[in-house]
């Protein structure tokens, strides 16, 4: 599948901000079942500094800074991406116990290594209730990890209500789990917390979903804005495999990966620090259209 993707993020600062520094993680990744054919990032007003770099996890980062006062910010990312992500052979994956063991004894420490995704992170603390929820889904440690995680993905989809506005970006794992509702970020955080506490490496993925579904298939939730799902490490051979708990499916040809990290705070599209006395309003627009 090939897509033309357009992301537009705007900010309005009624009382002006100054000394603003931002890190943007909006460029789709190249590799891992997708090829980035073309990408452009346009920023207005023109930043005082603009550097492109890659972070520890290999995400593309645009580091920008503004020294003059500004009352608005607009970021437009346009890309063409080809996705070819055949479903992973879940039943052929090693057992849960084998995956946990392999992860613990891995000797790679670089960005793609599972060792970075086994413990708590800034936004994800282990929680007894979530640990138990996942453990009871995994009834036996000998079952293939891929199949077990798929069962969990579907269970989250069934047990949780997708309801934009019911949570905020600051909602904790505990709150989201208690109210059993939220958005993709909440479901992903809950799933990651439970997997890690059971010894399975899991990381946060931010990206895009195809906006309009192919004929005869339902529209996926989360297609109007940036989406989030979970990468699970299924052993050295299969590596990282994407699961989308919001929709109860594997991340396939409709998913375009932008950034991965330990949780939302590693992958958020715009991180910023600036000086302001007033409020801000933000708007977010995504369009993912299949092209020939």
């Amino acid at each position, binding site marked *: 599948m090939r897509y033309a993707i357009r992301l537009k*993020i705007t*900010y309005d600062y009624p009382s002006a901000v100054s*000394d603003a*520094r*931002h*890190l943007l993680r909006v460029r789709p990744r190249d590799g891992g079942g997708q090829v980035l054919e073309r990408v452009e990032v346009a920023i207005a007003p023109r930043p005082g*500094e603009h550097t492109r770099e890659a*972070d*520890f*996890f290999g995400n593309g980062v645009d*580091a920008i*800074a503004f020294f003059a006062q500004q009352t608005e910010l607009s970021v437009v990312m346009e890309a063409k991406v080809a996705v070819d992500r055949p479903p992973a052979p879940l039943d052929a994956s090693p057992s849960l116990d084998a995956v*946990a063991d392999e992860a*613990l*004894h*891995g*000797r*790679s*420490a*670089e960005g793609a*290594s*599972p*060792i*970075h*995704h*086994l*413990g*708590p992170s*800034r936004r*994800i*603390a*282990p*929680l*007894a209730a979530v640990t138990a929820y996942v453990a009871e889904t995994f009834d036996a440690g000998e079952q293939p990890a891929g199949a077990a995680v798929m069962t969990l993905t579907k269970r989250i989809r069934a047990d949780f209500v997708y309801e*934009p506005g019911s949570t*905020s*970006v600051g909602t904790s794992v505990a709150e989201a789990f208690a109210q059993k509702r939220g958005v993709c*970020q909440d479901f992903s955080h809950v799933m990651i917390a439970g997997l890690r506490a059971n*010894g399975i490496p899991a990381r946060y993925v*931010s990206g895009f979903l195809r906006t309009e579904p192919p004929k005869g298939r339902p529209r996926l939730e*989360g297609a*109007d*804005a*940036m*989406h*989030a799902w979970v990468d699970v490490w299924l052993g050295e051979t299969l590596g990282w495999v994407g699961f989308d708990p919001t929709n109860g499916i594997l991340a396939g040809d409709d998913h375009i990966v932008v950034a991965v990290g330990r949780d*939302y*705070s590693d992958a*958020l*599209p*715009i*991180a*910023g*620090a*600036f*000086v*302001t006395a007033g409020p*801000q309003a*933000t708007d*977010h627009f995504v369009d993912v259209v299949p092209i020939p």
Partner: protein
Amino acid sequence: MRNHVPPEPPLIRRYATLAAKGRDEMIAPGGGVRPHYAPLMAKLAPMAESELGRRFASSRQYLSEAGVFHQVYGEGSEQSHEWPLGHPALVIDRDEWTTLCDGLVQRATFLERLLADLYGERRVIAEGVLPGILLGRNPEFLRPLASQGKGSAPLLSFIAVDLGRGPDGRWWVLGDRTQAPSGAGFALENRVATSKAFPDVSRALNVERLAGFFRRFREMLFALGGPERARIGLLTPGPHNETYYEHAYLARYLGLLLLEGGDLVVHGDRAEVRTVDGFQPIRVLWRRLDADFCDPLELFGGSRIGTPGLARAVRSGALTLVNALGAGILETPALLAFQKPLAKALLGEELTLPTIATWWCGQEKIRRFVEENAARLQLGPAFPGAPHFPVMGETAARPGSGGQKVPATTREGVSLVGQEIAALSTAPVFGDKGLEPRPVTLRAFLMRDEEGWHVMPGGFARVADSRDARVISMQRGGGSIDVWIPSPAPAAKPVTLLGPKGDRFSRRLPGALPARAADNLFWLGRYAERGEVAARLLRLHAGRAGEGWSEGELEARIATILEDYGVEIEGGHPERGLLALARQAADTASRIRERFSPDAWRTLKDIVALVLDAIAEKDEDVVGLTSAILTHLSGFAGLAHENMYRFTGWRFMQCGRALERGQATAAVVSALLSGEAPVGALEALLTFTDSSVTYRRRYSVNLSEETVVDLAVLDPLNPRSLAFQINTLSEVTSALPGVHLGETPDLLFRRLARLKVRLQTADAVEVDSAFLDRVVGDLALISDLLTQRYLLSSPRAAAEWSGGPE
């Protein structure tokens, strides 16, 4: 050969019985004094109790005068306490010290290589020496700096190692301090204070001096900055940190700029300091701020005390931090369980200094061992603490909490270690009944320059307040003592930080003032003056009541002005308002203690104490209290005026003071004389402006409104008049940075000039409430302009996070 053994004096005899139970620093197993303690005891034993008391007092007096105190946290408030320094010093035998130093230098080299590897090739993980999860789950592994070890800049330049002497007589490493080790400044202060008490003794023992170490350290910092010898900064979390005092002290002692995160800004790849004279580059920072707080953009986003972009500046090589961001990973307790294989892999040899026995519960065999031996081990976290990281809710086995729970699986065990409970040696410390044996730990300090690692000849020794040595903590009532390394011969020449005699003398002007420091000085001037105005008005009010005047119009007007200062007459507790004002001044001063004399700072603290006492004792003598406050404030003003270097900082303080006094004078004159002036208003004005004596000398007529107004508002020679404040402002601001003769003055100076002319040309009859209220407004505008131009460049960076997926 005579073999004369003198009888042990009672002081030592008694101590020897007390210390007999375990390993003691002074008493050998047979009960005799160890040779390296003998010269000290020979001096101390004959001293009468009264003499010892006198000596301890002189050390206490030094500490109090120098403003050394320490914060105790609890009950939701911070309290300053007397610095708990004990006597005598811990004496360490010279030969033993030399061996210890070799071990410490070897350990520092080991730590340096380990850090470079963890932030470089990560060979120890690839080769299976260290389990990867100890890196992957480590909150101190900072991924934005993950490759910094591949560069040439040293990641480690100043460390501390905590040591305890075990029952076998060897020094054992209890832990490494590499994040932002504290205590070196306190070690210095302890040395000075101990020398005040026992100058003759420390001389007789030829105690090795500390100054050489600090001098070398300062040279190293400058060398890191390159050949221009640009200013070096000390990065502090700010006044609310428990070791802020030490930061301020070391900054002053070493001649470093004391900087907070908000003082810095990153332009391109360079870090710069916001000063009243624009941005100035900085290349080296001695970091006393925990790494995760340093950059809200790339590290902990919730930090309000960091600098956005700092990690970039470090990555680019334009900024060097001592120690590097992420050096705190070496404090990971679980690393202590892998010392042997790590040393073999990184050094190719064994470490000569043993470390406290530690077992990491992330491996099944070892977890079971810990389980079986739980009774004699202490369980603790495997990773360094990061308070803004989620707490491990389920497996929180806190050290020393009793009923320790050994994790049932290695999955939980990953975050836990078991450690041997350290049986520490004891050292003699004077208590209520003479010398008492107290468990002791020693913090040794090391620094690295181009020649290699150097150990501070001394250190920071902590003693417990009881024999139970599980926890030695200043927060829990323990104390500290100095550490002496005696030399056989006196040092060739005392070393000071003043530089060798041959250095060509040059008077260097201090560098540009950081905007935050200027802001604090400006507000210190304002707050001190605000306190004075309120105290004067309150004394006036109380004085009239005391003289039997019935409460009338004049009292009502004064009470209204006082309300503006937060001082409520109505409720009968005007002291509370005074307390708030006094605290504002003292708090502001404590934020810039490195910039003026400890005496001036103490004066402000004394005022707070004065008001607190009055409130506690329900003392209703308001006149007495306000008079005492005014005496202290004039003492403060005098100290600031007489002792402060006439540079930019002093000018900002003067500006604040003149602005506040000008505004207050105009407001009070306007309020008291508006409409029909009440009876006694003129006398009250003269009292408020402290001008009664001058008035009687200058005007031989009876009180008239015109002459009183002339003296209080227009007379340029009366230091309390409005005109005098405006002239002061104009004079002081003309020497501020960026003001040049002949240039078109900006709005600030035009406004000030216009105001000055208005007061010079006004006639006393024109001065009515409307005139004065306009002056109050003009002064407020001038204050805003001054703030915008010089002070506002140090904003409180509000880190905002935005952009969420749905």
